[in-house]
């Protein structure tokens, strides 16, 4: 599919107010929905496009959510599962903000520390410092345990 055809395809699915999460790695859309806690009870229209041809990534997933703007914490969580994702904020059918998700240097309250015996599992907010991004590695500022990408994904799911 050419870039023009891809655009036409996306235009056909326009939403009025809400968020389009594009460039999600193929196969990760349902995980992103799970992070955003979007289920049967979500009031707006949600369109999930999977295995969409992409000029950059070969194939990608896209999610369109009517009536929802992402919070910072949600964007940080998506960055862990779908580091290539881009977020488009839509108002009155127009893109008013567009950015690629980025993992912050500190994950504060973004997700629980994977250590079940960490104090933050009982009280206070979690605080994971990102020590390196490739390979991804965080250290809990409280229990000092170190976790990789897979540990965090498992904790998020």
């Amino acid at each position, binding site marked *: 599919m050419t870039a023009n055809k891809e655009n036409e395809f996306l235009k056909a699915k326009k939403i009025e107010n809400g968020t389009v999460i594009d460039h999600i790695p193929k196969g990760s859309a349902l995980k992103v929905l799970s992070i955003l806690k979007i289920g049967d009870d979500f009031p707006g229209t949600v369109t999930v496009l999977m295995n969409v041809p992409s000029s950059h990534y070969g194939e990608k997933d896209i999610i369109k959510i009517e009536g929802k703007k992402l919070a910072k914490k949600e964007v940080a969580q998506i960055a862990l599962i779908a580091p290539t994702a881009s977020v488009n904020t839509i108002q009155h059918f127009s893109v008013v903000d567009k950015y690629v998700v980025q993992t912050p240097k500190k994950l504060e309250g973004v997700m629980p*520390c994977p*250590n079940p*015996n*960490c*104090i*933050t599992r*009982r*009280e*206070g907010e979690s605080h994971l410092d990102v020590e390196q991004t490739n390979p991804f590695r965080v*250290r*809990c*500022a*409280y*229990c*000092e*345990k*170190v976790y990789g990408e897979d540990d965090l994904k498992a904790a998020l799911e």
Partner: protein
Amino acid sequence: MNLISMRETSKAFIEDILKTAKKHEKTAREKKVLSTLDDKTLGILFFEPSTRTRLSFQAAMRRLGGESIGFNDAHFSSSAKGETLSDTIRVVEGYVDAIVLRHSVEGAAARAAEVTTLPVINAGDGANQHPTQALLDLYTIQKEKGKLEGLTVVLAGDLKYGRTVHSLMYALSHFGCTIQLHCPPSLKMPESIVEEVRQKTTVEEVTDFTQADVVYATRVQRERFADPEEYQKSLYVIDADVMATLKKDAMLMHPLPRVQEITPDVDLDPRAKYFEQTFYGVPVRMAILETLMEGKNP
């Protein structure tokens, strides 16, 4: 003004504590009382039972002229009624000038330090850290070997959950020691600690104690094993036969309590230093209390 983790403790602070501890050793040995902290009260909050650490902190505070209050069992605190650690700390803050905290949950001391402006001293948080033990261990080694630099130290036993050896690994890394690890496969030192310490010094796995200047034995904790057979397989014993394989000038340490890992006959071997080690807890903790309660940073 807190002592939470050896991971973030500088060499300068460690050396300062060792120097101050040396100054206090005579007072501790002669059981004298100074007036250094005679207007201060120490809160000793032990949510896990302890003998040596708690008593040596109490003794250290007494030798400095101060008083200590607290509890040695979470059942006697409001945490038994569901009070959060943060609330307990905020309450105790009104009664004392510094807090010594032991807790079964990792990161408890770091959390406590966030909610109070008083100095917080970590006396053990779960399987994470026990920095005051590491400082007294260093003091014992320096005292008995005359130096810290360049020694070969074997850490033996439960290196996975043993908070004393986690702290000691970081502490030894400042002094160019070769650290040898001797443990069953299921109780290996966490890779993240090995990786970090290896950036500063040599860390290697061994199966004997023959090259050691210092053997630091720890207890293999039965409660860590789901399978009793696996626990039995992980046990090790240092007896007269093992002592015969050590260098003549090596020293044997143990944070105690020991269960079966050092046989009683080894106590008579002049290289066994674990009871001296427990005594050094007093001057070292005097140094820690004096330093932190006077507002110096680690």
